[in-house]
């Protein structure tokens, strides 16, 4: 079986700064793979490099067996879509939900937008009452649902999730995580999900990779987190931190 997504020794350099120092990862079709790390670890950069939003200095990226060139073609965007971290920043402030969902269809020349938009809103649990709202008329959770609908409307097979719930309240996070699990099951999607929260990754992913300072620290199965079967000190520290504050002495 060919992997859905392979990154091979990918390097990303921004003005002399090596944000990603040769990171490799392979995600199987239908798998949910997590990237964990703290700020500056390069986890978001890897996601953006795959999406074509960060300059790849060397290394290769393969999607569904097809190596990607320097420029992404339109076919790529129908296979891979992305959900951003900040739902307040990822929706155009001057466009209605309707217009936001229309845009990908218009770009790819897909017809029957009426039906597709209604179905997409339905799928993410927003009724048609939300269709003509502007993003400032939506709550954070509703915005993230719109962002997910927008990513799904092109019917991609791979979804890149960049901290999709870290800007949300805990109760809203639970709803959005459930929605993401639901659509993954329904559409047999492959997820590559970035988060700083080990518990979220543990909940959502089968396998994960811990990153630090632009390097992969180690790859684990989600079960390894539960059994504390981790090799690297850094992962142990992350694991300990996720359990909350422990008073010394």
């Amino acid at each position, binding site marked *: 079986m060919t992997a859905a997504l392979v990154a091979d020794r990918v390097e990303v350099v921004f003005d002399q700064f090596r944000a990603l120092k040769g990171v490799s990862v392979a995600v199987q079709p239908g798998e949910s793979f997590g990237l964990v790390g703290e700020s500056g670890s390069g986890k978001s950069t890897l996601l953006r490099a795959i*999406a*074509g*939003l960060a300059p790849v200095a060397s290394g290769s990226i393969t999607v569904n067996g097809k190596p990607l060139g320097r420029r*992404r*073609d*339109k076919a*790529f*965007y*129908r296979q*891979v*879509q*992305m959900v*951003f*971290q*900040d739902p*307040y*920043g*990822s*929706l*155009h*402030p*001057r466009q*209605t939900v*309707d217009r936001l969902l229309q*845009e*990908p269809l218009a*770009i*790819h020349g897909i017809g029957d937008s009426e039906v597709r938009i209604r179905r997409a809103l339905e799928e993410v649990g927003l009724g048609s*009452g*939300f269709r*003509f*709202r*502007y993003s*400032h*008329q939506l709550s954070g959770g509703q915005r993230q649902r719109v*962002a997910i609908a*927008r990513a799904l409307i*092109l019917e991609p097979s791979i979804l890149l999730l960049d901290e999709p719930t870290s800007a949300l309240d805990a109760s809203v996070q639970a709803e959005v995580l459930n929605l993401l699990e639901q659509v993954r099951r329904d559409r047999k999607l492959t997820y590559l999900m970035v988060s700083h929260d080990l518990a979220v990754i543990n909940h959502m992913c089968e396998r994960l990779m811990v990153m630090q300072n632009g390097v992969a620290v180690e790859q684990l199965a989600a079960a390894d987190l539960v059994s504390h079967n981790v090799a690297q000190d850094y992962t142990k520290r992350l694991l300990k931190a996720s359990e909350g504050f422990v008073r010394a002495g």
Partner: protein
Amino acid sequence: MSVTDTSAMSWREWLLSERPQSRSQARLGRAYMTWRRFTANQLAVVGLFIILALVFVAIFAGLLAPYSPVVGDLRGSRLLPPDWAHWMGTDDQGRDILSRVIYGSRLTLYVIVLVALIAAPIGLVVGTVAGYAGGWTDAVLMRITDIFLAFPKLILALAFVAALGPGIENAIIAIAITSWPPYARIARAETLMVRNSDYIKAVEIMGASPGRIILRHIMPMCISSLIVRVTLDMAGIIIIAAGLGFLGLGAQPPLPEWGAMIASGRRFILDQWWVAAMPGMAILIVSLGFNLLGDGLRDALDPRSSGQ
């Protein structure tokens, strides 16, 4: 909302609805919110009223003007002070100044509308393309902009008119050519602010072409600050047009252009002050109107208060 309730109150509710039912309702609701913010500023409404009055006068100049603006009575009515027959007095050709000011409003409107229609889109395109493309494109476009900005506006306009020949059309072209660079700068600054935002990245990873991103996603974010700036510049444009007219390089006699009228009144300024003062007042009032309108629009269109 009940079907029977069609009072003004329900219209307001329909417009302010948080759950618009159609594209047009959403758009109208947004426009209504902008209108409410605009009318909250009373001076802005005064400005809008002045500009609407200018447009009204320009359209109905033929009906409003009591005399001909170009043919005067050279024998009996030269340089008459304001009275009941000539509210603003007459000039050295015996023409009624009120009628000339009324017809002059057409020229003023003609100049500012054309300048705005030429300069603002050039600035918008240059600025957004430079800002979004970055790199060499940005460097080249912005250095050209800098060259235009380096000259004082009136001097550059003078040079263009001198090269193109005097006349109102050439004055318009000259003013337009000299006024786009600030718009390009504003559009570029706005573009740089939104270029790296997630909502632009989101359309990029939908596979949108750069042209589409600039036209449909970036330009709408730049337009409101541009409208504000253009409105505030209108006063300056009127004054430059008047200045060119004053120097004899704009509208040619006997066209009743306000600046040219001041120029011709200059000779009598001490004894027959009204010849220069009346068109001067018209310029003052219209400039003030545009400034007040621009200030109001700035508050009403500010994307930070309506968008994020």
